[in-house]
């Protein structure tokens, strides 16, 4: 787990992957609106490892998983699997690669077609890839394979001819796993496979996935928002925020020494079942909401909520006037009129000349604004420590001890 990954050839290499969804309104609107679900994401997954992808809802982790299996056509970038760039492979030539990459879905109730028996569901991949067609008795071989798969996921032969609605959520997720395993894949993308399950079942399913990994040498891309579960199962973890990868590190490193302010906030939100928790009260509460992913502004995606993106402009410093220095910068506090409570400037709003003059007229000595670099320049994912990448301009200024 802790040996160097750099020496290994990655099984899957994601390079500058982008996926924009066109959200332009109507035929005649001039304004183009793009939802940047994935924006310039790069990471590698090595054979036999589990790469966890975490982030809050809507940050693009599921889209990343789905783009890798080409359920969505990537806007730009490459998905290099086993030396082949899947992004350039045409849909009709995808079949051989489809067998190698499979997916386990989140909702066990939606991921099985209710009109098909368990046999039909599992056999679909076998039929599509004609796996047993060169055998003397393909039907028998297929049947045996289905029984074997069912038993390996903890179901019985007798279940083969039943319909999905006759199973519990956990059992249905097992059928979904059996379906993915039926074509002998190398990489399985687990798109929040346990988040819809009962906690007791979650552990069973995760343990089963780990067993399969050991037995069959599978590689997982494990997408989740349950941070403790991700820590348990993953070798390395990528943290996503609003379509961008914020931090990538091995699982122990990330949980011990998170570097990125977002990761810190995210990890501080893990509930600790201990009333005497020494870190009680140290939870970082992020201000505001996740900004809209439609036509995002340049700069760091996290800047609008980041404590470290703030800097202070003082009245008495430098040669330019206070107003000149405020104008054009981004406010990082919300300012209300002291008497009327009328909103003057909202946090993350650009300070116009008018507002700057007003702030000046209030006689304030200082004003909290955004750091220019955070709001203008998109940070690259840089290797801060060995095997530990983070995307932040001021990463070296931040304390790397997790505080």
């Amino acid at each position, binding site marked *: 787990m802790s040996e160097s990954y750099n020496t290994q050839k990655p099984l899957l290499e994601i390079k500058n992957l982008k996926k924009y969804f066109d959200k332009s309104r109507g035929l005649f609107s001039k304004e183009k609106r793009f939802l940047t679900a994935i924006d310039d994401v790069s990471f590698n997954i090595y054979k036999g490892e589990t790469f966890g992808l975490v982030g809050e809802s809507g940050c693009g982790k599921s889209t990343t998983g789905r783009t890798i299996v080409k359920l969505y056509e990537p806007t730009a970038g490459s998905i290099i699997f086993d030396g082949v760039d899947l992004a350039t492979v045409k849909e009709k030539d995808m079949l051989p690669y489809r067998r190698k990459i499979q997916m386990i879905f989140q909702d066990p109730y*939606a*991921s099985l*077609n209710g*009109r098909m028996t368990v046999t039909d569901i599992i056999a679909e991949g076998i039929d599509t890839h004609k796996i047993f067609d060169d055998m003397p008795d393909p039907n028998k071989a297929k049947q045996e394979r289905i029984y074997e798969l069912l038993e390996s996921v903890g179901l019985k032969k007798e279940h083969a001819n039943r*319909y999905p609605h006759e199973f519990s959520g956990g059992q249905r997720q097992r059928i979904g796993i059996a379906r993915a395993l039926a074509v002998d894949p190398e990489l399985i993308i687990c798109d929040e496979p346990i988040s819809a399950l009962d906690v007791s079942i979650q552990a069973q399913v995760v343990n089963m996935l780990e067993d399969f990994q050991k037995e069959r040498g599978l590689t997982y891309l494990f997408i989740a928002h349950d941070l403790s579960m991700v820590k348990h199962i993953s070798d390395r973890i990528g943290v996503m925020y609003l379509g961008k990868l914020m931090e990538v590190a091995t699982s122990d490193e990330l949980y011990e020494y998170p570097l990125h302010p977002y990761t810190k906030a995210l990890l501080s939100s893990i509930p600790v079942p201990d009333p005497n928790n020494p870190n009680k009260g140290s939870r970082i509460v992020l201000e505001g909401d996740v900004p809209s992913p439609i036509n995002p502004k340049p700069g760091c995606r996290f800047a609008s909520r980041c404590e470290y993106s703030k800097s202070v402009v003082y009245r008495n410093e430098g040669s330019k006037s206070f107003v000149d220095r405020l104008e054009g910068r981004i406010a990082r506090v919300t300012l209300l009129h002291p008497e009327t409570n009328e909103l003057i400037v909202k946090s993350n709003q650009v300070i116009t000349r008018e507002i700057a003059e007003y702030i000046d007229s209030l006689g304030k000595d200082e004003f909290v604004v955004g750091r220019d670099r955070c709001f203008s320049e998109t940070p690259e994912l840089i290797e801060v420590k060995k095997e530990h990448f983070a995307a932040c301009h001021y990463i070296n200024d931040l304390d790397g001890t997790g505080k």
Partner: protein
Amino acid sequence: MANKDFEFISREEKLDSEQTRRSLTYWQDVWRRLKKNRLAMIGLIGVIIIVLFGILGPIFTPYKYSDQVLDFSNLPPRFDIYNIADDEYIFLTKEYRVLETTSKGELISRIDNIHKDQVNKIYYFAKEYEVTLEANTVGNYTPTETLGANAVYSTKWGIALEDSTNAAGVIAQIVYIHPNSPFQGVLMEGDSFDIQSNQNLTEIMLLADPNSTSSASTLIEGRMGSQAVIDALEANNGVEYFVVGDPQIEVNFSYKLMDPEDRPAGYEDVLITVTYEGKELTEKSDTVSNSTYLWGTDSLGRDILTRVMYGARISLAVAFVATIVNFIIGITYGSISGYKGGGVDNFMMRVVDIINSIPLTLYVILLMVVLRDVVIDVTLFGRYFVIFKGGSGLGTIIFALGSVYWVGMARLVRGQILGLKEQEYVLAARTIGVSTTKIITRHLVPNAMGPIIVSMTMMIPSAVFTEAFLSFIGLGVSAPQASWGTLANDALSGLTTYPYQLFFPAAAIAVTMLAFNFLGDGLRDALDPRLRKG
């Protein structure tokens, strides 16, 4: 109880103890739920009855949909009869025709009127006389008198007829009867017969001389056109029936002068008095059901029951064919549009919008004009089949409904597919690499089948109604074919006098629509219990 009281069971035991029952497929489950819905089952039974009524009904009726008996036109399903003699009943129609019936309501024949008097009396022949023609009396009756140049003499029957005129127009008058003629004592010299109008035909036939080429004979033959009857008469023996003028039934339609306000409900201004051999019958003796034509007849004397049965065939054929065409086109079009999405979807849906914006009536009229002369036929296995005949109207209606109705289905299917294609099982199938065709046929369409079936069940009554509407305004099937719409249209002209003619086709339409709607509602509930109302 302590922990030691319990022991672990093995996994095998746990799995084996699970309750197992036969698994129900989706459709078995739907059927189970449908069976519980009483209204839907009534609808289903109704649908089955209507279909059987259309398919099997015509086998059991002695009439064809085009059989006309003008004497028995506009007969109601129930009527009043007068008992004139022991076992003889008559029924006076609203057109003042007198029909001889039995006490059970079977129609025997029409009794013709001899003449109408100036005021309000109509006289009818009452009886048929039976004359036995004996072989030795049949033959050449050479006239013992000199006949006029205009006379036509039948040496076979010994009767001379001469054209004559009176107020009614051209009539044939008996000018001579041979003393040995079988009609001696039955017919009188001076008796006259109105050949042109509604005269008793049997009687005239007796006088027809097949050997003669004179005008009267030709006239008679031309009018009759029934060679079979003439042949029978030529056989010269056996029993022939004919009608003579006496005794008479006198029907007096006296108009009572009555202030409309004083008139009690149900009373008419006309007082009908039937006089038979001097006896006056004012009271009708019974009201009986029409045993010959159960649902009565239309204005051309065609059996309404038979025509409603044939109408069911046509109306349901139109509905089913149109629905099946809709089903095929609608599902194919809608699923491709929905699954492809984007520009393809946009284009395909605009085409649907365009088709949908043309009014159906206009569309049918245009198609009628275009397809009027189109006949598509094939010869298969040495047999000749007409696949499509534009002139009949039936093919055009099916074509029009089939080519327009699918837009609704296409929209429905598209909507369903749009929702379903983002379902994870479809994504899973795509991840596996299942082809688009298979995804549509195995994953999407089966899951959209519920609303599709419901929409189809609802589409059948709608197609029946549209067909009825088009036929009603005269764009439907052409006569003598009958659909429920044309039947309703035909009945409309006599609505106040013969309301039953409209009642039966209208009831058939209503029952069909109700049955299909009940079934459709039930199916919707059974297919998707979430949609259940209330």
